[in-house]
């Protein structure tokens, strides 16, 4: 093949996109549809719990349009990082939705799944080949066992294996954002530099256009570079909008590491072909001496309970920092006296929304607020303790005066009951890579069975 056209309909499966833009991409000769289903951006909860951030109905709505388009055009559909975090449960969740749509619509599609979840015992045997990424330190082996889920981020190779085995639809576990779009053109033998750069640019769908809300993009990769255009005829890619996407959610805008090597775009040129199409050339891919797979793991740190009250009284708001300092001190005293708990038994964060809740000590504006929402977030080893602390703090959140008030105010609780149990909370515990001899060894490809076709 001299060219491969990648249709990227949207940055996140389940976010929604105009149906007409996918039809437009098919008209323009798309060879493959690639869409990302995941992210770590919303925090460790989704990996830790193995659940999705997106609603099943929203994922189904997007998949229905994409599966129909793929079946009619007879081109593959690749979904990466299924179920937000790419756990095995996430792959199975998306596979279940696909199965229902396939049956309801009578679509003749062979579906492959690629699982990326890792077992601590297996990784323990590789401990000498696991290296930290900055700012993480050396891996303490028990951390592996403490994770509720660990996934490896696949490159394009396991996805290519599924395509070569005849899959029409590939539902992948955790994959690099770029691998999803890179897999098909890599299989077709196009050059790695333009492929990986194009894959990075299309990973968020329309984010690289002047109107990201107008739907996705089509990237045409050839031997000298790639051309990118929006799927909405009224939208535009400009050299600036395309080049600027290399900045998005990256530490370094010039290089990006993939399992098989590094994308280098420092010499890339961006040229407008017309008012809405951009030509990119000069992108390179430098193969790594050692193939590495990035690991993501999440573990439970404890349980949280939240209370929320609010202040409108200008007298208290005039000395809100004094009031908050008194609140922190009183909570510690009351919890110690009532529950017998001390430092180390629980923690809490008191956040003053409307004053400095978001930036705290780095907030540049110290002016008096008009109203403040007071969030008490309690963290403990078990839910019962967290809730008990929040309940002990409740009378303070209702009635605490400032030191110069000689009466008890009644503050404005937002809900009844005041306490909301948040359940287990998680942290990302791994920021490491493992050296592998084969790019597919950590992943399990389940090919379509005969009756699937």
């Amino acid at each position, binding site marked *: 093949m001299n060219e491969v056209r990648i249709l990227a309909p949207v940055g996140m499966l389940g976010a929604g996109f105009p149906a007409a833009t996918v039809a437009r991409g098919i008209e323009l000769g798309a060879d493959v549809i690639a869409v990302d289903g995941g992210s*770590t*951006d*919303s*925090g*460790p*909860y989704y990996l830790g719990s193995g659940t999705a951030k997106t609603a099943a109905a929203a994922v189904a709505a997007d998949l229905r349009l994409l599966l129909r388009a793929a079946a009619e055009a007879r081109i593959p559909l690749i979904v990466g990082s299924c179920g937000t975090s790419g756990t095995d449960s996430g792959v199975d969740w998306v596979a279940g939705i696909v199965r229902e749509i396939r049956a309801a619509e009578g679509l003749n599609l062979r579906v492959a799944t690629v699982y990326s979840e890792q077992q601590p015992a297996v990784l323990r045997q590789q401990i000498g080949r696991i290296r930290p*990424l*900055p*700012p*993480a330190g050396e891996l303490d082996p028990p951390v592996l066992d403490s994770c509720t889920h660990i996934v490896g981020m696949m490159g394009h190779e396991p996805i290519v294996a599924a395509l070569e085995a005849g899959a029409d639809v590939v539902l992948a576990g955790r994959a690099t954002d770029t691998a999803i779009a890179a897999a098909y053109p890599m299989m077709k033998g196009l050059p790695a530099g333009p492929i990986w750069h194009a894959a990075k640019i299309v990973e968020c769908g329309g984010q690289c256009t002047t109107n990201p809300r107008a739907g996705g993009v089509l990237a045409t990769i050839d031997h000298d570079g790639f051309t990118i255009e929006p799927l909405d005829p009224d939208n535009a890619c400009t050299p*600036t909008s395309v*080049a*600027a996407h290399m*900045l*998005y*959610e*990256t*530490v*370094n*805008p*010039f290089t990006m590491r993939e399992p098989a090597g590094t994308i280098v775009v420092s010499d890339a040129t961006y040229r407008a072909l017309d008012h809405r199409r951009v030509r990119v050339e000069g992108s390179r891919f430098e193969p790594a001496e050692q193939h590495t797979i990035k690991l*993501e793991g999440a573990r439970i*740190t404890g349980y*949280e309970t939240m209370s929320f009250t609010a202040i409108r009284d200008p007298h208290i708001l005039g000395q809100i920092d004094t009031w908050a300092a008194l609140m922190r001190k009183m909570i510690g005293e009351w919890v110690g006296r009532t529950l017998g708990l001390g430092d180390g038994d629980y*923690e*809490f*964060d008191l*956040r003053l929304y409307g004053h400095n*809740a*978001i*930036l*705290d*000590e*780095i*907030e*540049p*504006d*110290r002016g008096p607020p008009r109203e403040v929402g007071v969030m008490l*977030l309690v*963290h403990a080893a078990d839910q019962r303790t967290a809730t008990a602390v929040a309940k002990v703090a409740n009378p303070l959140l209702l009635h605490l005066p400032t030191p110069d008030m000689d009466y008890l105010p009644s503050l404005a609780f937002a809900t009844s009951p005041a306490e909301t149990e948040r359940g287990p*909370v*998680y*942290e*990302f515990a791994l*920021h490491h890579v493992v050296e592998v001899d084969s790019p597919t060894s950590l992943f399990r490809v389940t090919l379509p069975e005969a009756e699937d076709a």
Partner: protein
Amino acid sequence: MPDPRTIADLALEVRSKNAGPFWVTMELFMRDADGYAVVADPGYLDAAVIARLYGVPAGTIQIFRIPSLNVVKISFPRPVPQGSLRDRDIHAGQHHVPLALYPLAPQSVSPGS
């Protein structure tokens, strides 16, 4: 436009976001080459300034200056673990504000002036 007083006054957009779970990154998209020249000047904006604004160690801060886009990009390890009890900005999407409001001439602008 009144006299520009902060970086935001010279910028099209100032934004911040996670770059993976362990890094924060920010971009100053400046309106033109003149604005870019101001913020790209290491005598005005450097790791020491960022360290002071964000309470992070200067040695961990990476600054990229991209004249072709009139962009200065700044990355540093997330000071608070994502999703932890003390993380009040899960996506790090509001952390651009201290940088956006950084005075253009720190010595001549005092709070409330």
